[in-house]
């Protein structure tokens, strides 16, 4: 048994029983989590491990930098466009390429549409089942469900008892045929589920509605990216031309296409206002006594910012999505963030399966090294191909530990919202105050699992509004006669210097994303991505600071250790996506998630 006090303020005690969840499901990628619980089932030690190796840097070396976006877009099935955008921005930064205003608006529209769609799908299809019990929905009274719906969202037209009865019957059919589909084998008898049957039925109904709706949002990226999945991107702008008088669904962007986008934006705003936000508040109302999962969100938060209002200006005042860092819980000071400063962002690996020349030091991503070194500590239980228990005193994850000026940071919607709030961003402050007032909770309630989930919903609402803004802005610009969408002056590699470096950043739905690259003799010499889940899912660093996932699990009570819904709830609230933070190692015959209690 060891008791450790971490520099970032947590008391770790590994005396109690170990609970292992591997893989953590309903996420993209492979992740393992181990915790120790004490005699009262409270988590006293937490370990988050990425169980795949990331090989992205390795495959990009030697490639044409203008092609990098197409590769990074294929890393993962979720953040495709965000990676592509980050990549073209990195190359443009290196080669000092300026993009036209229309290209900036179109990129923002694509990025914002991804934010909205990803947040919606995350809430209803990945995270809701941590709070909503579909089996319980079978017991609901459709008339009472209808009354509940009308009370929380008076303008939602789909609220009749018959509408909810239909969903209930459909659900019943699924359950009776033994085909629970996505609802199979949850912990549906666990006392951690608190909603009354009517709220469960309402949420399950919207699960299906959201599934149907999200596909419309995607059409925005089909219009501007030429196709979806895998829209096209271009270093220097966007690969679509504008011909406002043209006709048809193919070829240049015309008025017909713009009108389609515009109508989708209107419907998106309605869906979020009438369905997503009311559901979020209703569900949160039943769970506001469950205030676990804050972790380091009350102390250390980071956002690179995104959504440049004017093209080519990446300074904080021009970024509509907030940029900055908060440390030591001091909300009165938002620090400036500089991605090019070698003293700010560094990746450490004493607890990661990589090799550095000197492992006591961190490396800035421009000087990053990705050389695997799979070595287990002496207290590991099991063997190299079947680990029963990790030894967290040694290397234990394929994720590196990025730190901002030495601090472990949380990134994502909650980070962006708290930073915006601390900066006095008017829109964000109004949204947050509305939620706090509606739920009658203090501002400190934000620093929780539920706060993370709420910030994501508010951000979806914000992003939908900004889609309208950029749509109108672009149309006005086009009407003024500016039709440019790409700058190809530096397309030819002969125009490039021999050796340059650049950094591109975005705020992916799940947090700050940066790509750092070096170009030598027109080819990629080094490419490092620090992705959101690298920040949130990081293991311990050389000082012993635990990462955001680990911290958020600490001191949570787990009602039934063999049904760790509380662990999943908190991990899911980060919307973890590990496909790009790590890379799969070997096929595995295990079919089901194993929860082991020792």
């Amino acid at each position, binding site marked *: 048994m060891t008791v450790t006090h971490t520099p970032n303020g947590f008391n770790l005690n590994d005396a109690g029983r170990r609970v292992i969840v591997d893989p953590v499901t309903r996420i993209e990628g492979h992740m393992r989590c181990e915790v120790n619980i004490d005699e009262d089932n409270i988590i006293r030690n937490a370990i988050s491990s990425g169980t795949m190796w990331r090989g992205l840097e390795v495959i990009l070396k*030697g490639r*044409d930098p203008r092609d990098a976006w*197409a590769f990074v877009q294929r890393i993962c*099935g979720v953040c495709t466009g965000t990676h592509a955008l980050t990549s073209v921005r990195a190359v443009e930064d290196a080669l000092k390429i300026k993009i036209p205003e229309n290209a900036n608006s179109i990129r923002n529209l694509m990025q914002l549409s991804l934010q909205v769609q990803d947040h919606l*799908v995350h809430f209803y299809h990945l995270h809701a089942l941590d709070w909503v019990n579909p089996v319980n929905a079978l017991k609901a009274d459709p008339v009472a469900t209808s009354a509940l719906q009308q009370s929380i969202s008076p303008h939602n037209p789909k609220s009749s008892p018959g509408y909810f009865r239909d969903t209930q019957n459909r659900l019943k059919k699924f359950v009776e045929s033994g085909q629970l589909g996505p609802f199979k084998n949850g912990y549906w008898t666990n006392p951690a589920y608190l909603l009354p049957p009517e709220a469960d039925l309402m949420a399950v109904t919207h699960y299906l509605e959201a599934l149907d709706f999200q596909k419309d949002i995607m059409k925005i990226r089909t219009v501007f990216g*030429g196709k979806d999945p895998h829209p096209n991107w271009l270093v220097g702008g966007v690969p679509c031309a504008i011909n406002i008088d043209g006709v048809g669904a193919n070829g240049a962007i015309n008025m017909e296409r713009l009108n389609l986008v515009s109508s989708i934006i209107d419907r998106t705003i309605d869906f979020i206002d009438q369905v997503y936000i009311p559901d979020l508040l209703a569900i949160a109302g039943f769970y506001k006594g469950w205030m676990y999962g804050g972790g380091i969100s009350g102390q250390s938060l980071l956002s690179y910012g995104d959504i440049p209002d004017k093209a080519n200006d990446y300074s904080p005042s021009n970024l509509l999505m907030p940029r900055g860092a908060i440390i030591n819980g001091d909300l009165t000071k938002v620090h400036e963030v500089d991605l090019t400063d070698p003293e700010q962002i560094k990746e450490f690996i004493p607890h990661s399966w990589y090799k550095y020349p000197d492992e006591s030091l961190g490396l800035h991503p421009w000087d990053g090294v990705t050389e695997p*070194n799979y070595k287990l500590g002496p207290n590991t239980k099991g063997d190299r191909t079947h680990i029963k228990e990790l030894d967290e005193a040694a290397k234990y994850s394929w994720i590196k530990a990025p730190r901002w000026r030495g601090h472990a940071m949380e990134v994502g919607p909650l980070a962006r919202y708290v930073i915006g709030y601390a900066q006095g961003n008017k829109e964000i402050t109004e949204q947050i105050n509305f939620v706090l007032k509606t739920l009658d909770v203090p501002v400190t309630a934000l620093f929780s699992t539920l706060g993370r989930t709420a910030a994501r919903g508010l951000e979806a609402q914000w992003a939908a509004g900004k889609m309208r803004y950029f749509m109108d802005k672009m149309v006005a610009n086009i009407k003024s006669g500016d039709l440019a969408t790409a700058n190809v002056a530096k397309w030819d590699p002969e125009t490039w210097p021999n050796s340059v470096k650049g950094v591109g950043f975005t705020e992916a739905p799940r947090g700050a994303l940066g790509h750092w690259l070096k170009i030598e003799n027109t080819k990629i010499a080094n490419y490092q991505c620090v992705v959101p889940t690298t920040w949130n899912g990081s293991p311990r660093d050389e000082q012993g600071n635990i990462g955001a996932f680990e911290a958020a699990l600490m001191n949570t009570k787990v009602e039934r250790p063999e049904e760790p819904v509380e662990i999943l709830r908190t991990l899911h609230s980060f919307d973890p996506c590990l496909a790009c933070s790590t890379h*799969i190692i070997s*096929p595995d015959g295990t079919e089901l998630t194993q*929860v082991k209690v020792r």
Partner: protein
Amino acid sequence: MNILLLGIGNVLWADEGFGVRVIERLQKSYRFPDQVKVMDGGTQGVYLVEHVQAAEVLIVFDAIDYGLPPGTLKRIENDDVPNFLGAKKMSLHQTGFQEVLAMAQMLGSYPQHLLLIGVQPEELDDYGGSLRPIVKAQIQPAIDMAIDYLQVFGIKAEAINRDGDLADPVLNIQRYEQERPTADAACRIGDDRVLQVEGFELRPPQSSDERTVQVDVDYRGKY
């Protein structure tokens, strides 16, 4: 009648790219009537639901672990498809695609005819690598199998030769293979697990002496 030919998989992981490479060849070498959509689905999950919903006939190309010798081509039809996709966890997207089928079903529109044409992969652990020859050789047979199946529905494919390849030209299989830097240049070195070259081998599920509770909050397994 709407028909969707869908390739799924990740082109960056050697044989995992089979489905997408079949689509690339289809786009290059065949022309279909308008009601046939030929789509590179990559590793997209939920985002593919609408395309699946819209299809009355769905043909999926993928790398599947059947536990057969590498390069074996095998077809699975209709109700067996979701079970098969979820039978073994082999890649990121397979669980995702089984979920896509379940969601389409819950939304009340599901393809009436479903055919999965899968190849047994030889190598997956070569990030940035291309199809192994034995798997690449099955692209054409997989296409022939699909064209044969489509005849039942009165659909004929016309052989053509188009210059453009996959709609992502930079991932065109020739460029993808030719421009791959050497292992030395790309620093493709690693530990013994990364360098495993015995080919694709499934580890048998490990038995565990501890008390184990199986929970499946994901969408794997039969349903």
